[in-house]
């Protein structure tokens, strides 16, 4: 099964969002 593709930098995420007209979902997490 395909997994969620997570960006780890903001600018590439913005670039993809602009290219694909998608909003960004930023997940702020802490390790268990």
């Amino acid at each position, binding site marked *: 099964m395909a997994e969620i593709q997570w960006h780890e930098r903001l600018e590439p995420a913005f670039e993809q969002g602009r290219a694909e007209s998608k*909003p960004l979902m930023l997940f702020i*997490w802490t390790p268990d």
Partner: protein
Amino acid sequence: MGTVTYPNAQITEFVRERFVAAKFNLKERHPDFKDVVGRAKPLWSPLFIYMDCRGNEFRRNVGYLSPDEFLAELHLTLGLAALLRNAIDESLGWLDGVATAFPDTLAAPEALYWAAAAAYRVGGIPAVVARWDALCARYPDGPWTRRVRDVAPAEARIT
């Protein structure tokens, strides 16, 4: 989230299809962190911040959500993203859809609240009042109903 919600096939497919996802470890001094969180210091995680592709934040939510709750949250978020673009029909489609497809989730009454805000753009105050009445009838108590049930139409503060 990483154990139960993200591996869920529906969640994975929906996120991949509709969002650009990024994750940041709160414990790391990430170079983009200030741009991610803005001026509001995160107090807890998991924290979700939703932005348009220009960096305009339009939603922030904290806490674990089960797959159903998270899927409803994502639909609600797409409704808000469409509202931000003034795509009212699309926005109403997503927001009304939350209450239809996920009626028992936390997001459902909130989606109806925001649907009233979207409806205002095309129907003015009468559309808001009609939708507020419907929200109160469907969800008689709850934080989103309390925001509207005692507000007289003339006192509504809509921007």
